[in-house]
């Protein structure tokens, strides 16, 4: 059963999440510098802080007749749900919130992004925002089912929806070894839900920034923070689901969890610079006809192994 919420952990959690998210942003900045043919000095790691400072100084904007309530609500929901999702991720052995339905909890927090992104696009009363918001919904229709099945596959392997038990079930063999398809699908979904890299069409350059088009100042900062936080939360969740959680020799388990999370996060960030944007109208069919059957077969294999 549940051990309930570790209160001090809950207080630290948003800041810890911000820290891991900032690491991702720093890494992306370094890769960007390298792509531009520039040196990558150590102070590049400060670039996200610099960006945040810039957005704190820059004035906010309002378009004509925006739905300001929905607009800001949508933007804020990103970070709030990322914190909710991260709460069930065991940092080493213990999550901030231990729940017997942790896997479903993570999934539910993630679906709130449907609302968040669409509202961010709709609220600004701008064409670019609308296009971006609707693109995200189309993208969500594509990644959501494979994502759910990937989560279920991991839960199936452990016979539990409690993330701690899922991690514990990998004592002998990490799930990634015998559920590689589920792992890959989960990572694809992680990119898609944080509209990052190849799946950043909802914020695409071709639509003047899509959902981000009319956001400036702290409003924009809140959305970007939420996006990086989700990237971090998803990477953090992939570790207990597929990479053995905090298991590893010598080092304490929380450090192992952190190391694995950062490795996954680095891969997700690297993908951004390695692939062009995947357009939703093409990805939709790929997701339904390739990813979905593949993950169903993966689940079938896992369930046959389990019984």
């Amino acid at each position: 059963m549940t051990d309930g919420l570790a209160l001090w952990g809950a207080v630290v959690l948003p800041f810890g999440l911000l820290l891991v998210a900032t690491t991702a942003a720093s890494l992306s900045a370094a890769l960007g510098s390298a792509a531009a043919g520039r040196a990558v000095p150590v102070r590049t790691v400060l670039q996200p802080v610099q960006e945040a400072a810039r957005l704190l100084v820059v004035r906010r904007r309002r378009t004509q007749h925006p739905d300001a309530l929905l607009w800001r609500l949508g933007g804020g929901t990103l970070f709030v749900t990322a914190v909710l999702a991260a709460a069930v991720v065991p940092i080493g052995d213990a999550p901030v919130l231990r729940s017997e339905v942790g896997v479903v909890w993570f999934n539910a927090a993630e679906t709130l992004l449907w609302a968040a992104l669409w509202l961010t696009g709709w609220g600004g009363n701008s064409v670019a925002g609308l296009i971006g918001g609707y693109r995200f919904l189309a993208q969500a229709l594509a990644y959501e089912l494979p994502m759910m099945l990937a989560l279920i596959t991991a839960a199936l392997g452990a016979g539990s929806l409690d993330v701690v038990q899922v991690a514990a079930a990998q004592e002998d063999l990490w799930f990634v070894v015998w559920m590689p398809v589920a792992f890959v699908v989960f990572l694809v979904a992680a990119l898609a839900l944080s509209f990052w890299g190849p799946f950043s069409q909802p914020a695409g350059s071709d639509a003047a920034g899509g959902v981000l088009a009319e956001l400036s100042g702290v409003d924009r900062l809140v959305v970007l923070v939420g996006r990086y936080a989700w990237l971090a939360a998803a990477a953090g969740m992939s570790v207990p689901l597929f990479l053995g959680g905090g298991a590893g020799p010598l080092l304490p388990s929380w450090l192992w969890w952190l190391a694995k999370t950062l490795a996954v996060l680095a891969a997700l960030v690297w993908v951004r610079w390695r692939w062009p944007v995947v357009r939703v109208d093409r990805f939709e069919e790929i997701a339904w006809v390739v990813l979905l059957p593949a993950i169903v077969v993966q689940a079938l294999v896992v369930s046959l192994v389990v019984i």
Partner: protein
Amino acid sequence: MEELGAALVLMALAAAVLAGLYAVHLLLVVDREPLAADPFLSGHPPTEHAVSRYHVRWYAVTLLFLAFDMEMVFMFPWALVVADLGLAAVVEMFGFLAILLVGVLYAWREGALRWT
């Protein structure tokens, strides 16, 4: 029950962090009053409100999704008991999934997964 309390506490804390950002912003910003601006239209003024009846090309996909999504209600609890119930549970669930995948296959052939 613990979940609800946790959700409330976590939401409050996360919202507090965001409120903190807004507070810092108020201290640092060049002008506290948000700028009233036109939406970006490549240097043209807008002629009408953008929020309108937005026509998408993927209505069929949403319906397909909702039908498949119902499946998940059963699949989470199913995942917990497969090991106990054995082959019968596997056959039943994947029979169920196979039926739905037939639906997806049909939709694919009809072109419903494309922007129509």
